[in-house]
């Protein structure tokens, strides 16, 4: 399979990365090179093979359903580019 420029634009939009026409042209070639490389996986007979979900044979650990952390509002917003009264500030999203 290979991608065209329209697909690259669609993927860039899904990934929320702004791209110029030049970027799209360059990325299309590079993505096709990588997709060409991974194509060989189709040679492998995977009939009856389970997809890997955990590399270590272990059940996912579950922690006790108790509050162990919190009251750190100042720590959480400390690295935000813009905050106001402990809220993250973003451009207006509701008209």
């Amino acid at each position, binding site marked *: 399979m290979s991608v065209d420029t329209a697909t690259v634009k669609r993927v860039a939009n899904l990934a929320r990365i702004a791209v110029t026409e030049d970027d799209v042209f360059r990325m299309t070639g590079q993505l096709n090179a990588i997709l060409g490389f991974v194509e060989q996986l189709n040679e492998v007979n995977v009939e009856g093979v389970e997809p890997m979900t955990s590399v270590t044979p272990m059940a996912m650990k579950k922690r006790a359903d108790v509050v162990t952390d919190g009251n750190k509002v100042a720590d959480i917003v400390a690295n935000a580019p813009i905050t106001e009264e402990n809220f993250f500030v*973003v451009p207006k999203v509701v008209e």
Partner: protein
Amino acid sequence: MTDLTALTIAEARDQLKAKAITATELTGAYIQAIENANEALNAYIVTTPEKALEMAKASDARLAAGNAGALEGIPLGIKDLFGTEGVHTQAASHILDGFKPHYESTVTANLWADGAVMLGKLNMDEFAMGSSNESSYYGPVKNPWRAKGSNVDLVPGGSSGGSAAAVAARLCAGATATDTGGSIRQPAAFTGTVGIKPTYGRCSRWGIVAFASSLDQAGPIARDVRDAAIMLRSMASVDAKDTTSVDIAVPDYEAAIGKPLAGIKIGIPKEYRVDGMPEEIEKLWQQGIAWLKDAGATIVDISLPHTKYALPAYYIVAPAEASSNLARYDGVRYGLRVPGKDIVDMYERTRAEGFGEEVKRRIMIGTYVLSAGYYDAYYLQAQKVRTLIKKDFEDAFHAGVDAILTPATPSAAFGIADQEMNSDPVKMYLNDIFTVTVNMAGLPGIAVPAGLDSRGLPLGLQLIGRPFDEETLFQTAYVIEQAAGKFNAPKWW
């Protein structure tokens, strides 16, 4: 006085305990060495000399009081991927501009609890995506090694290029690193240092910037096998904050060093020969086999038939996980924000400016293979192939193999801005062809220097072990180190 930066961790530990040197003197020597060398090598992104001297002073007090930890007073460099409280943590990316976490990663917290001293944060490929340290926002790191009679700058490998270069140039006694597809072992091989990626689940991933969560593991890069064993014992732990942390006690890895190899069976996989691999690497591999045989190990030929599919499967699984992990960088909660006309425009501009080329490429691939209609063809197929790759190793171990010996990399270090590598992403990816299988199967792997090529550049061998059997890797790697000797870069910087 002798150069204190020449001491290994084990030697410094003994001298500190014997009160022959102080942690403050040792730390001071490293601070001076970094000051002299970092402009040339670019191994450190940020240095923390004041914090280092403060920690050293506390170490000296504990040494005097007789309650020293396992790494008391040992100055270490920390890869920029590890969250360090109040200190620059950016995964060498522009998008995390100014980020200083209000928490400490479990691995670094373990090191400080054992008395280690932090010298600063080490350069790396952006978000650990790369094999040459050239994708860093902070510029490439130079390898302390150069070809004989040449002044051409070489890459230190990646993504833990700063860690490997700093250890090789003696700008720290040891360094933390991480490995998703070879990011500890390939730079170790390129710089004549020892690097171990432990079993998935051995070191906590908590507080380490995530790249591909099912593959990422932390480990040390050190000057020799013993130092790597000492560091890993402190880095590893069982951590309730990481659900993939495995509940197995951390052994004393150093105790495995020096044990005889009698009864150990080493597998040699025929699939680890690739087209265009230099003759010298094949020779080095044969030499490694001979050393282990001489030391009493049994050598058996094995087959890992799905080896060639590990790299293509990796380039689906890793970008898929990365595209999801890196979705959090949106200009809202931390780091860079580029204003836009609305919120989506702000996200798109922030991510376009904040991420470098390689990172964008991998996010795009990951987004594509996970998108509607392609998930089964790419992602599901890759995860099935991954099951088969793991089964290859399991079959070998069930047949009685204790460890597997392979070359660490298909070549020695290449030049910075190498045109062939930089014009073709797939060519760069091939650097990890021998290391990536280990991440896909979650196994431990160690790279140990085994010789120099005809140009005088270091080459490494890799040993792959059973899950949670790092001890056999240290035991076997030590035999190779004893036979090969240690390699130091002639100083030019």
